[in-house]
């Protein structure tokens, strides 16, 4: 997938899909999770719904066909965000991704065709800057995992946290549905290097930069960002990438840009970012 896509219908999602959807209120949450999980039931997948409180999860699934049977025979699990994501109070990205890997394997071993997760992880966005940094690193690792296993995920975020909190986490998803906001940019970790897809303009620039710093900052040494699928970059986007490169340099990570098209290069050049040279940034 080279361009981030809007999410028209959650029941169309299949293995490998990783979608971000914002919601406003309990009814909207239910409208997203019911068709998503019902599709998983038809596909004979193991189902998991994660959210802040068990009672609210049961309510959200009131309209799910065969809800109680699914719960009774273990094909549907409900988990509370705090228990499943941050047992020690803090999200541990690598451990959490490992947990999903094992859960997917367990589902396959149990005769299911895969694992399907809908998770309201808004709580993880409320952990301040350091909490969000972990969440961003986690979403990227989870996206990589989904590229390799029959795992389907719908990440749900309460729209009331605001666009500045939602922006960076959304760009880490190949599929995005954020109310009126079009899906423009996607920072992907699937593949040998990080890659930027779609369009980065002034409306997305700060989100992409934040996500990039949090994801690339996990890796000491050199991080390569492939721009060959980036269809559009404006001056504001190039300035944000230059800022991200400086911030990463301050943490000992050097960002190297590759694959920029002619137009993308024109913008990078204004900020001394050289997409062909080693280190990515000229003095």
């Amino acid at each position: 997938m080279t361009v981030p896509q809007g999410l028209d219908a959650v029941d169309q999602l299949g293995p490998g899909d990783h979608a971000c959807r914002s919601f406003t209120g309990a009814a909207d949450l239910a409208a997203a999770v019911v068709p998503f999980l019902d599709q998983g039931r038809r596909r004979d997948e193991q189902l998991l719904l994660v959210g802040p409180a068990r009672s609210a999860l049961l309510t959200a699934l009131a309209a799910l066909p065969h809800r109680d049977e699914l719960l009774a025979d273990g094909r549907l699990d409900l988990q509370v965000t705090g228990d499943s994501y941050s047992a020690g109070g803090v999200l541990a990205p690598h451990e959490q991704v490992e947990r999903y890997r094992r859960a997917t394997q367990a589902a396959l071993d149990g005769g299911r065709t895969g694992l399907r997760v809908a998770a309201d992880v808004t709580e993880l966005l409320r952990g301040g800057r350091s909490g969000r940094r972990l969440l961003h690193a986690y979403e990227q690792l989870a996206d990589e995992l989904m590229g390799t296993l029959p795992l389907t995920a719908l990440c749900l975020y309460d729209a009331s946290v605001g666009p500045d909190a939602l922006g960076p986490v959304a760009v880490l998803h190949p599929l995005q549905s954020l109310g009126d906001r079009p899906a423009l940019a996607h920072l992907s970790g699937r593949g040998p290097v990080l890659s930027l897809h779609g369009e980065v303009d002034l409306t997305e620039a700060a989100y992409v930069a934040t996500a990039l710093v949090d994801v690339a900052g996990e890796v000491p040494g050199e991080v390569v960002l492939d721009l060959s699928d980036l269809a559009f970059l404006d001056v504001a986007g190039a300035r944000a990438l230059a800022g991200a490169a400086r911030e990463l340099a301050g943490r000992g990570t050097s960002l190297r840009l590759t694959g920029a098209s002619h137009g993308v290069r024109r913008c990078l050049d204004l900020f001394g970012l050289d997409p062909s040279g080693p280190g990515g940034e000229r003095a």
Partner: protein
Amino acid sequence: MTRMRPTGDWDGTRLAHEGFVFSADAQVVERVVPFVLEGFRRDEPVLVVAGERVRWLLAEHLGTDLGRLTVFAAAETWWRGGHGTLQAYDRDLRALRATTPSWRLAAEPTWLAREDGREWSRFEAVANRCYDAMPYYSLCLHDARRLPADVLAAVDRSHPLTWSGTAPAPGPAYEDPAAFLRSVQPAWTARPAHAGVATVTAPVQGRRAISAAVPADRRARLGDVVLATHELLANALRVAAFAELATWMDGDTFVVEVSDGGPGLPDETLGYVPPDPERGSGGMWLAWSLADDAAVRSGPAGTAVRLYFGAPFRP
């Protein structure tokens, strides 16, 4: 006889910008050699970028002192279009400023003799504003035997200083940079009735609209047109809730107009000001550099900017 003062009262704290026009070799030697030697006496870096004849004259008269020049370069290879040339020059200026308190430059923009080099006058005009705080003396050399009359007139209009014979003096024909630009930009004709018009409230919507508006035979430069138009729209939408995007063909030229009801460009010269990597927008510079020409109209009702993409398009 009055003693010659090659830089007059210039104290090395800010830009001095002189347009010197010569029509004989002896005039070059009389003006430039003392200018260079004064720089050596003051321990200032002295840079010379000039055409072959001027370089040959300096080499002959400076002798072994030629080796003391910080830069002694051929102007013939410098031209990369107005924006490309100034962007490279701008990097050199910033590097100099970081390392030396003041310097002096004798430069002969030989490309003013080329048809496509004449836009350089606009950059010379805007330099008076954007390089005002740069601590250097720029002595710009122009050969009246090679340059047409309108280019020589533009030299007088874009350089605040001229040469009196013994010292620099205020040029009587010097104009404000914005007024100079307005006088040389394409004439502002009425928008034709057949123009396609769209109201734009978000940059991404504007990109889709301009993409669709570029005629089929002009799509080789689609990326340039979309990026330049986007930067105009992004700038307009910073100050206004919506902007109007209009496009039409004027003969062989594809014209893009972005207008808004906001206060608009605070400075009409922005399209000729090199972006500062540390701050500033850079969007107007990029838009102007991607287009073949640009024009601005600013008034109480708002601001309109036109970009012209001529034929044949570059491949």
